[in-house]
């Protein structure tokens, strides 16, 4: 269905050459007024960087500080920047509240995001292998078709996919023709299956696999290896960086995805994911006195993706750079 991750190309950020060397070499030769100009430019530059950094950071700072405020502090005018006595118990209260099972939301998000990621890795790497290393009629047309699907708006699928999931055979009380019952709608399948294929994932795997030399595969073929064996034992290990990139993007994209889980879980609250859960909490904690708890819940929802990002920063940023380049 629709792809919550971004569209991608292929590139090599690693091949960056340093510009600094050239600048240093020339610096000595610059006339004095030029040099003063460059120094002034440097001051302005770091000044603006500091401003941008503050603008990027301030909203997160506010999220944390608001989660630690009493209600009275949170509505004070002019606003308080940091609470007098931080109310850490808001976090514990949210975790203990049985009406908004944050633990369940996290578990659902973890199940759905992991399952989708594994499926996308499998379908993308298999398809990528076929599209680069095997030769057969219709190959390029199929690739062009995959690419063009990136243009379809998600809304073209939502209504029919809802109907199709309900009719998937042999699930949720259906008979083998898929009549009756709720089909896959009341299970995690409803959140997983529509995202098992990613045009973007196929694209990235294909671009990366093109750089694996054919001779390597031919050598294995001569030794009697099957294509599936070559895929598993040669291709997958060699394309680990691309697999990591696809995995991180898919995982974070799924973790943050709101629209489809919102539609599916309206009738199945036990399937709610973290973004839907925050939305529900906004209603549950709408009373003035629980404003701090809502902030604490929001702050906790941000933690997993930031942690994944911090841990995988190199792959993630590389992946983003890949999205723009050959």
């Amino acid at each position: 269905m629709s792809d919550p991750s971004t569209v991608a190309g292929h590139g090599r950020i690693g091949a960056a050459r340093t510009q600094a060397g050239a600048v240093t070499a020339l610096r000595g030769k610059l006339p004095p007024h030029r040099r003063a100009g460059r120094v002034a430019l440097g001051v302005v530059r770091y000044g603006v960087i500091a401003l941008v950094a503050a603008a990027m950071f301030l909203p997160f700072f506010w999220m944390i500080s608001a989660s630690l405020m009493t209600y009275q502090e949170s509505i004070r005018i002019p606003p308080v920047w940091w609470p007098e006595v931080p109310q850490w118990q808001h976090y514990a209260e949210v975790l203990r509240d049985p009406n908004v099972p944050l633990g369940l939301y996290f578990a659902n998000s973890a199940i759905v995001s992991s399952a989708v990621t594994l499926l996308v890795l499998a379908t993308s790497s298999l398809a990528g292998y076929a599209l680069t290393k095997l030769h057969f009629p219709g190959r390029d047309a199929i690739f062009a078709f995959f690419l063009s699907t990136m243009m379809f708006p998600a809304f073209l699928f939502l209504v029919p996919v809802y109907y199709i999931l309900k009719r998937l055979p042999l699930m949720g009380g259906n008979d083998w023709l898929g009549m009756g019952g709720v089909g896959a709608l009341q299970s995690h399948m409803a959140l997983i299956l529509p995202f098992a294929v990613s045009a973007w994932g196929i694209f990235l795997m294909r671009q990366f696999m093109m750089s694996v030399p054919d001779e390597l595969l031919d050598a294995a073929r001569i030794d009697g290896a099957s294509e599936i064996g070559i895929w598993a034992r040669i291709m997958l290990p060699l394309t680990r960086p691309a697999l990591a990139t696809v995995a991180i993007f898919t995982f974070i994209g799924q973790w943050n995805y709101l629209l489809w889980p919102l539609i599916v879980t309206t009738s199945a609250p036990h399937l709610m994911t973290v973004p839907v859960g925050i939305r529900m909490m906004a209603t549950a904690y709408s009373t003035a006195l629980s404003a701090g708890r809502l902030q604490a819940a929001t702050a906790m929802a941000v933690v997993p993706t930031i942690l994944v990002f911090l841990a995988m920063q190199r792959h993630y940023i590389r992946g983003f750079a890949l999205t723009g380049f050959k």
Partner: protein
Amino acid sequence: MALSRRARQTITGYAFLSPALLFYAVFLLIPVGMSVYISFTNWNLLTPLERARKVGWSNYLYLLQEDDMFGAALRNTVIYALGTVFIGMAVALLIALLINNARGGPLWRFLIFAPVVTPAIAVGRIWGGIYHPAHGYLNEILRLVGLPPQQWLASAERALPSIMATAIWAGVGATVIVLIAGLRNVPAQYYDAARIDGAGPWHEFWHVTLPMLRPTVLFLSVTGLIGAWQVFDLVYAMAVGGTESGTTPARAVMVVALYLYTTAFRNLRAGRATAGALLLFVIIFVVTLILLRVLRRGGLEAYE
């Protein structure tokens, strides 16, 4: 050894593609076909689709001629998409030039990237508080520099621009990273040559950096716009619920995806919503084709 190598590769190739093709067929091709059919019915999602009455072009006619909310949604979506993508690009270019080769790179990267990986619903909640007219930080900052406080999300004129500003904040890090990769792919000799010719930083930017970045910028425009036409999460989080800023006038922030969601899954008019989705697709398709033509002229060959 009965099969030729070519025949074997054809069978293996399609076998390898079959999981992807199967999912594509079930969750993409069949749904698109169904969408076209559903758009000509008055289906309400609840009754079996076979029993829905066929209504001809009336869904399309209603959306385009009678429903001024859909018109507002189209208008807002165009403003949102063009605004966030192109203003976002300018901001990202500025940041990319500033932090490329700057000291403390990992810290800047972390700061501009944290919003990219933050769920949109959380971003919406965070900014809802910042925009709060009475006790939000934004008005406090205005007060500190001596400006009068403003209504942000609750104002008909400022609600959409406020959401767009948040969207730019949330997405700019991604654009910056791709632009930095683009900057690093400009051959160093070009800068050396420009400097030997006595070019200042400004000349370098206009005559070396910008032309070399053109393919990157156009690529980011195409992919950025495809995403932006479909904005849902942020508008839903900031305008529909979960903010502390009170209610936003619906017409001021209604975007197509939000309209379609409400029409299909709240008001149960699946036929009308699907017709709207097809109209959105036509817009995305036409704009993308136009941009791709420009892109090709602007050096898409470099990508082949």
